[in-house]
C-alpha cells in the first residue's frame, strides 16, 4: 500500500504544480489520496469483519455448529437381526420370523380427513371409519370408537401384514401411521408346539427349543446412520456408517412334522377315549437317538399363548415323572439275562401271591398256581415271577443296571423344565422297595427316559442319548451338528437279541398293540400315581417294530386315569396306530419275518 501511494505522488502531476507561468486559478481538485485511503479503510473494516466472522464460525465455533447441522440431517436406524428359523428333519419350516406392522393413530388429527374436499359427503372421523373398517376387518362402529378420542398415540391393530398396512396408509387418513415389527409365526400351529416353545411379544424366547437354543437362534442387531435430504433420500457425499445385522442361525430338529402331527392326533384320541388328564407319545430312532416325534395332548398353539395359565405349556414326556410299572420288568429281565442268572427257558412256579421276607407280593389278577418260563413271566406280566427273577440278583447290581439304562438322569434333549426322576441308591431299597423295584415301582422316570431305555434292546444293547436337535444350519446351507450324542453299551448284543425275542413273544398277532404286516415287540405298563392326594393311574405301552430288526421305538403314555385301566387297553391301541403310521412315514418295509413265539409254560 505504502509503495503504491508513493508511486502515485511522484507521478505526472508534479511538473504541473511547479509551473509558475500559469495564472489560472487553481482548479478545485479533491484529495484523491484521502478519498482513496478512506475507501481502503472501509474495505479493510469490511474484510476484517468478514474474516473475524469467518474465524469465529470456522475456527472457534466450528465443531459445535457443524455437529448441529450433521445431527439435523443424520438419521440412525436399527437393522433388526432376523431370528433364525426352526426346521424339521426334512427342512420344513416349523418356526419362522416375518415382518409385521403395528398400526397406530393420533386421534387428534383424524377429523381433518377430507376436510378440504368439496365433493365428499361425509368427512372427518365418520368417513375415516367407513374407509378403514373393511381394511382392518373391523366393524365401522368399532373403528369409529378406536379413532375417536383425544389421545395422541393409540394402537389401532398390532401385527398386521404388510398388505394391510399398505392399504391402510393408502387411504391417507391424517394421524395414522405404522411401525415395523418382527413377528414369530409357527405355520403348523400346535404341531410340535410343545417342542418349539414360543417367544414373547418383545421377541424374547420364553419356552421350549426357542429358549434352550436362544443363543443360536437370535442374531445381533445392526445399525445404519446416514445423512438424508428433505425427501428422505441419502445425501451421497454425506457420512454413512453401517454395521450390518447378523441374522440368527437356522436350527434343524430331528422331528418329522407329519409324524409329530399324527402322533398328537393319536394321543388326543387315546386321552379322550379314557377321560385321562393328558398323554404323550414318543417316536425314537434307537440307532441315532433321534426323536422323530414327541407329542403331547392337551398342548398349545405357540402362535397364540393364552395368558390365563389354562394351558399346559411344557412337555409331559420329560417333565412328568411317574413309576413305570410293568415296563420296568424289562430291565430286571435284561439284568438277569446279562448276569447269566436266567435264560428265556428258566422255570418259575408262580402263585397268585407270595411273601418275600415278610413282604406280600401279588399279581394284578387272581390266578391259580402257574408254571411259567421267563418268557411266560414277562408275557403274563407277573409281579411274583419278576421278584423271583430279581432275587437271584443283588440290589446293587440291579441299581447299576437301572442307572446304565439312563434312568434317574437327564435325557440330554436340552429342553427346559426336564425332570430326571428319582432312582434311590440300592442301600435305600429297604423293606418293600427291594421287591417293588423289580417290577417298576419305587423309582420314578419320565417318558422319554423309558423309550430311550427300551431303545437299548432295539439297538443291540447300546443306548444312544436321545436328541431333538440335528444341528445348526450355516449360511451356506451346511449342517453343523451340536455335539455327538453319547452312546453307552448297557447289555451285550446277545442279551439285546433275547430281549427282542421276549418282547416279540409278549405281543400276539391279535393283540391291540399289533401292527398289521409287521412283527411287533412291546410291553405294557400301568402304575399308580399319587397326585395331589388323588390316586390316579398312568398307563403306558412301549415297543418297537419290526421286531426282528427294529428301526423305531414308540412309546405311548396316558396320565391321570381315574381308575385302573391297563396299558393294553389305554395305550396299546394308540401304539399300534402310531407305529403303523410311523413305519409308513419313515418308509420302513415289512421284513417278512413272522413274530416269534416262545415257550411260556413248562
Amino acid at each position: 500500500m505504502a509503495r503504491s501511494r508513493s508511486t502515485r505522488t511522484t507521478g505526472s502531476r508534479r511538473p504541473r504544480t511547479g509551473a509558475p507561468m500559469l495564472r489560472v486559478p487553481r482548479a478545485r481538485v479533491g484529495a484523491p489520496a484521502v478519498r482513496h485511503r478512506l475507501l481502503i479503510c472501509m474495505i479493510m473494516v469490511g474484510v476484517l469483519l468478514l474474516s473475524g466472522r469467518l474465524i469465529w464460525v470456522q475456527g472457534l465455533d466450528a465443531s459445535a455448529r457443524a455437529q448441529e447441522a450433521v445431527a439435523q440431517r443424520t438419521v440412525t436406524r436399527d437393522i433388526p437381526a432376523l431370528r433364525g428359523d426352526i426346521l424339521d428333519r426334512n427342512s420344513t419350516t416349523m418356526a419362522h420370523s416375518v415382518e409385521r406392522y403395528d398400526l397406530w393413530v393420533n386421534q387428534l388429527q383424524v377429523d381433518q380427513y377430507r376436510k378440504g374436499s368439496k365433493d365428499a359427503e361425509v368427512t372427518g372421523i365418520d368417513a375415516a371409519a367407513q374407509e378403514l373398517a373393511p381394511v382392518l376387518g373391523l366393524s365401522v362402529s368399532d373403528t369409529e370408537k378406536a379413532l375417536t378420542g383425544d389421545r395422541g398415540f393409540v394402537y389401532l391393530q398390532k401385527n398386521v401384514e404388510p398388505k394391510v398396512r399398505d392399504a391402510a396408509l393408502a387411504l391417507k387418513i391424517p394421524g395414522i401411521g405404522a411401525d415395523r415389527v418382527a413377528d414369530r409365526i409357527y405355520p403348523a400351529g400346535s404341531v410340535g408346539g410343545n417342542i418349539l416353545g414360543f417367544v414373547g411379544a418383545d421377541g424374547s424366547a420364553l419356552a421350549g427349543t426357542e429358549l434352550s437354543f436362544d443363543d443360536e437362534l437370535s442374531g445381533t442387531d445392526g445399525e445404519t446412520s446416514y445423512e438424508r435430504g428433505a425427501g428422505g433420500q441419502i445425501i451421497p457425499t454425506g457420512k454413512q456408517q453401517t454395521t450390518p445385522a447378523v441374522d440368527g442361525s437356522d436350527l434343524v430338529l430331528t422331528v418329522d412334522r407329519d409324524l409329530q402331527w399324527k402322533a398328537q392326533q393319536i394321543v388326543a384320541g387315546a386321552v379322550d377315549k379314557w377321560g385321562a388328564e393328558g398323554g404323550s407319545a414318543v417316536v425314537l430312532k434307537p440307532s441315532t437317538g433321534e426323536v422323530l416325534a414327541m407329542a403331547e395332548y392337551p398342548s398349545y398353539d405357540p402362535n397364540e399363548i393364552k395368558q390365563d395359565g389354562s394351558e399346559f405349556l411344557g412337555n409331559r414326556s420329560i417333565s412328568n415323572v411317574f413309576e413305570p410299572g410293568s415296563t420296568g420288568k424289562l430291565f430286571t429281565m435284561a439284568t438277569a439275562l446279562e448276569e447269566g442268572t436266567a435264560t428265556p427257558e428258566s422255570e418259575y412256579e408262580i402263585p397268585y401271591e407270595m411273601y418275600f421276607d415278610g413282604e406280600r407280593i401279588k399279581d394284578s389278577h387272581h390266578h391259580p398256581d402257574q408254571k411259567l418260563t421267563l418268557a411266560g413271566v414277562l408275557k403274563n406280566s407277573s409281579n411274583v415271577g419278576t421278584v423271583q427273577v430279581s432275587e437271584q440278583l443283588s440290589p446293587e447290581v440291579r441299581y447299576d443296571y437301572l442307572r446304565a439304562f439312563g434312568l434317574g438322569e437327564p435325557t440330554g434333549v436340552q429342553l427346559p423344565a426336564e425332570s430326571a426322576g428319582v432312582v434311590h441308591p440300592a442301600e435305600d431299597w429297604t423293606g418293600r422297595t427291594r421287591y417293588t423295584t423289580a417290577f417298576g415301582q419305587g423309582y420314578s422316570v419320565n417318558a422319554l427316559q423309558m423309550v430311550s431305555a427300551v431303545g437299548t434292546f432295539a439297538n443291540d444293547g447300546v443306548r444312544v442319548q436321545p436328541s431333538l436337535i440335528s444341528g445348526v444350519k450355516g449360511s451356506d446351507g451346511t449342517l453343523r451338528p451340536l455335539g455327538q450324542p453319547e452312546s453307552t453299551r448297557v447289555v451285550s448284543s446277545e442279551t439285546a437279541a433275547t430281549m427282542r425275542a421276549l418282547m416279540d413273544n409278549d405281543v400276539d398277532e391279535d393283540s391291540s398293540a399289533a401292527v398289521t404286516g409287521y412283527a411287533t415287540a412291546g410291553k405294557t405298563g400301568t402304575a399308580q400315581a399319587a397326585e395331589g392326594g388323588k390316586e390316579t393311574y398312568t398307563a403306558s405301552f412301549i415297543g418297537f417294530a419290526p421286531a426282528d430288526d427294529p428301526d423305531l421305538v414308540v412309546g405311548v403314555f396316558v396320565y391321570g386315569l381315574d381308575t385302573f385301566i391297563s396299558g393294553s387297553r389305554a395305550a396299546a391301541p394308540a401304539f399300534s396306530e402310531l407305529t403303523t403310521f410311523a413305519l409308513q412315514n419313515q418308509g420302513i418295509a415289512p421284513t417278512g419275518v413272522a413274530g416269534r413265539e416262545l415257550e411260556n409254560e413248562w
Partner: protein
Amino acid sequence: MASTSAVHAPAVRPVRGPRTAPTARPRLTVVAAPKTSGSSMPFTILCTLIVTATLAALLYLNIQMSDTSYEITRLQSQSQRLTEEKQALVETDERLGTPQELERQAREIGMVPVTDPAYIDLDTGEVIGETSPTAQTEVNPELADVPAEVAVPPAQIYDQPTTYHGMGNEGV
C-alpha cells in the same frame, strides 16, 4: 499488485537520473512502441473455459449423484415391496402345506389313510406286504374320534379378516 510494482518499480529511477545528466535531454523523442507480448485475450478465455468446464463437471457430477441417490431410494422401496410380496407368498405356501390343511383337503376329495401299505423291492421286483383296496376306514374303536380342530387345531394366525378384498397393492 505484483504487476504494478514491476512497472513503476522505484528501483529503476536512480538509473535514469545519472543518465540524463551528461547530455541535454530532448523534450520529445520517438520511442519505439513497447514490445507487447500480444493480446492476453486467449489466456483469459482459456482460464474462463477451464473454470466453466470445472463448474459444469462439478454440477453434472452432483446432479448425477443425487439422481442416483433418488434411484437408490426408489429401488430400495421396490425391493422392500418385493420382499413383502415374497413373504406373503411364502406364508400362503406354508399355510397350505401344513399337515392339518393337507389332511382336510385330502378328506374333501375322498381320500382315506392307508392302513396296509405294500412295498416293492426295486432290485428284485418283489412286492413286500399285502395290500387291498382301501375301504372307507372307520376310526379305530379303541381311540376316541377327536375332531381335528380339537386334537391338533390349525395355527391361529390364519384367521385373517375375510372382509378385506384388496389386492394388497393399494400402497404402491
